[in-house]
């Protein structure tokens, strides 16, 4: 259980010197209790006090690192229940299960290929969960060798057999995989192994009570690089457990749950499995292991993950300006859009696909989409006209034609009047630009 403000206050210097940025030590203590500041901000706190307050000073959910070198994945360190309060920090790690008795090389090739470019972002499957399905230690080790040779991705090693884990670690220890999992029977040995190889250790409980008890025992052995699996597999139970773990860690500072979480999907049908994962990404899961390698199912999942983990406070924007797509010249078509990153990159992708070198004017709308900006008077005839001038379009091209998004067709008249340019109303969805350009500019 976390400390209360008053409990923290007892350990502070009580000088009210304000160096922490708070008017009084008490105010600082209250803020600390709520996780709104960190103990480091008081320069005068004694070492004894630091020790006593370590639980209050620690973040509610520990930051756990998987992997090594340039290939480190961070998990945990979340501080929120709702994303509208503040950004969620570390996107759910997406892992694909590989059995040690299947065709490892083929499967890993497929997994390596699970990468997508969409709206200026690159999405990838992050991890291989190598499962000791054979139950045989030598097979597991051989599979680890094959897999390690085939991919730079991170690993979770899945076996409750300590000897099999040890064997696979001889191959993969440097890559700092997650060891899955410590349970009530093997936790002492698994903890030793994790410690000796400084690898994160997954802890699998049979339920929340069991999980909390197991975590305490492992922490008592002096290890804290943990990832929690509450053991539930039914979708609504996983939702309930993930919610409790997050709430208890963040709101109650319940230490046994102050670690990132993980879960395996349980549906045989890949589409149903994807929907389970959609739910888990929404609600607090640090790592999800899936079986499917279907691109058409992973693309929506990874897109959803990107959506959930964007910053709710500030829209992602691109620099306003005139962008050159391809080898432009004075006859190149000119498109205009907003500087909301999502909007801009959709348009950029579709203009690029026309293979006709073109300009895109990204008008400064404060990083909001076409209709939002239009409704908020940030995407107006005046603003577009100013952008045409400011970005030197009158020098860059000979013609005087500009394509606007179909959604703001109503701007046509006013924009022609303001700018003196001929306004061409483009399609409503940027995806229509290819066909439109072929008819118009090819």
């Amino acid at each position, binding site marked *: 259980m976390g400390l209360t403000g008053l409990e923290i206050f007892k350990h502070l210097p009580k000088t009210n010197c304000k160096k922490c940025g708070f008017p009084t030590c008490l105010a600082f203590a209250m803020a600390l209790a709520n996780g709104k500041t960190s103990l480091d901000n008081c320069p005068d706190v004694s070492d004894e006090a630091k020790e006593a307050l370590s639980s209050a000073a620690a973040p509610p959910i520990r930051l756990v690192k998987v992997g090594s070198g340039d290939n480190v994945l961070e998990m945990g360190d979340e501080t929120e229940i709702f994303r509208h309060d503040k950004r969620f920090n570390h996107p759910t790690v997406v892992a694909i299960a590989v059995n040690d008795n299947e065709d490892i090389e083929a499967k890993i090739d497929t997994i390596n290929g699970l990468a997508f470019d969409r709206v200026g972002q690159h999405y990838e499957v992050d991890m291989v969960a190598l499962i000791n399905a054979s139950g045989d230690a030598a097979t597991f080790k051989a599979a680890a060798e094959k897999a390690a040779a085939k991919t730079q991705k991170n690993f979770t090693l899945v076996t409750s057999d300590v000897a099999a884990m040890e064997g696979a670690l001889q191959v993969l220890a440097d890559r700092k995989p997650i060891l899955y999992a410590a349970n009530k029977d093997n936790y002492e040995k698994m903890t030793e192994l994790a410690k000796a190889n400084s690898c994160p250790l997954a802890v699998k409980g049979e339920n929340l*009570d069991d999980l909390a008890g197991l975590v305490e025992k492992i922490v008592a052995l002096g290890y804290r690089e943990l990832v929690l699996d509450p053991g539930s597999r039914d979708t*609504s139970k996983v939702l309930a457990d993930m*919610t409790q773990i997050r709430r208890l860690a963040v709101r109650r500072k319940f230490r*046994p749950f102050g670690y990132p979480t993980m879960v395996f999907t349980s549906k045989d049908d890949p589409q149903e499995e994807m929907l389970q994962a959609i739910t888990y990404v929404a609600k607090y899961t640090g790592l999800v292991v899936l079986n499917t390698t*279907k691109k*058409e199912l992973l*693309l929506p999942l990874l897109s959803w993950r990107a959506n959930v983990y964007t910053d709710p406070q500030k829209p992602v924007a691109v620099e306003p300006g005139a962008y050159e797509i391809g080898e432009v010249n004075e006859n190149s078509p000119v498109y205009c859009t907003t500087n909301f990153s999502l909007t801009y990159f959709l348009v950029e992708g579709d203009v690029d696909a026309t293979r006709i070198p073109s300009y895109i004017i990204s008008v400064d709308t404060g990083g909001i989409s076409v209709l939002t900006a239009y409704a908020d008077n940030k995407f107006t005839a005046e603003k577009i006209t100013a952008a045409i001038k400011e970005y030197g379009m009158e020098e860059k091209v000979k013609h005087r034609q500009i394509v606007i998004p179909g959604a703001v067709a109503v701007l046509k008249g006013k924009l022609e009047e303001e700018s003196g340019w001929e306004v061409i109303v483009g399609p409503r969805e940027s995806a229509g630009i290819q066909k439109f350009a072929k008819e118009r500019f090819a």
Partner: protein
Amino acid sequence: MAVELLKEKYRSQVREVVLGATKEEGGTRSHTLKVGGESALPFLHFEGTIPNRPLVAMEIWDIVPEEWPASLKSFFEDVYDDPGAWAKKCVEEYGADLIAVRFKSADPDIKDASAEDCIATLKKVLEAVGVPLIVYGCGKAEKDNTIIGPLAEAAEGENLLLGVAEQDNYKSVASAAMAYKHCVIAQSPIDINIAKQLNILIAEMSTPLLDRIVIDPTVAALGYGIEYSYSIMERARFGALQGDRMLAMPTIANVGHEVWSKKESYISEEEQPGWGDQAERSMAWEAATAGALLQAGMDILVMRNPNAVGLIKKLIDDMMKG
């Protein structure tokens, strides 16, 4: 070690709205449906009750949906020139809880169909299926103001869910709902204050309507701004549970409408080789959008692809298990 669960104590709950009316109740539906009534955040059965499962409505048009990609259109090839048969197929084959009829033909740029034409279609659909209905105009407010009233009158007592009342255009829809005993969709542009304000305006016309409002908070498709809709909904639902009665309405999302115009739903695998099979991807995009919104508290999902509908209904089955 026994973990003491953290259960929120909410002060309030979402209002429960009844859709449709049976013969005894003055309509012709075979059954009614209840929506809303939650006293907890989505599917958190441990701290409240979720008395009604979220509903899946399937959307049908009164014209051939030429703009739908072939992979979607093909499901309805045999029926899409007959809205009654189309509705029946959605209910009987695909398990739609409700039917949402969109009167596209009324669009002045399409057929500019009259209120009488639309009424004839509505009657066909009412006869073809027994489930409660949602009625949408063509999406152009001026025209919709001339058809929604007559449609509501022609179906008096059916307790339709009429769309859509907006802040600057709510009177005709709300008064039609009031006069002919229907429910009303109050649509706000992903803005909690506007959602509340609109409900207050509707309540000023008729207080009893408060228990017949379903909020459309406006959603975006996955990958097209859905995170804004998601967070607005989460905030609204949290506010409702904390006692804000003017936000405590069940919600509806036009999932199909958002998803099926987007690139991910129709671009072929040849054109976009990295994205996988178009038919399955588009279906998955709709299902994933709906699945994500369920986690924000959506009560009615208006969808198009039968396979996506099937998947979401299975997900809802799972989520409703306590």
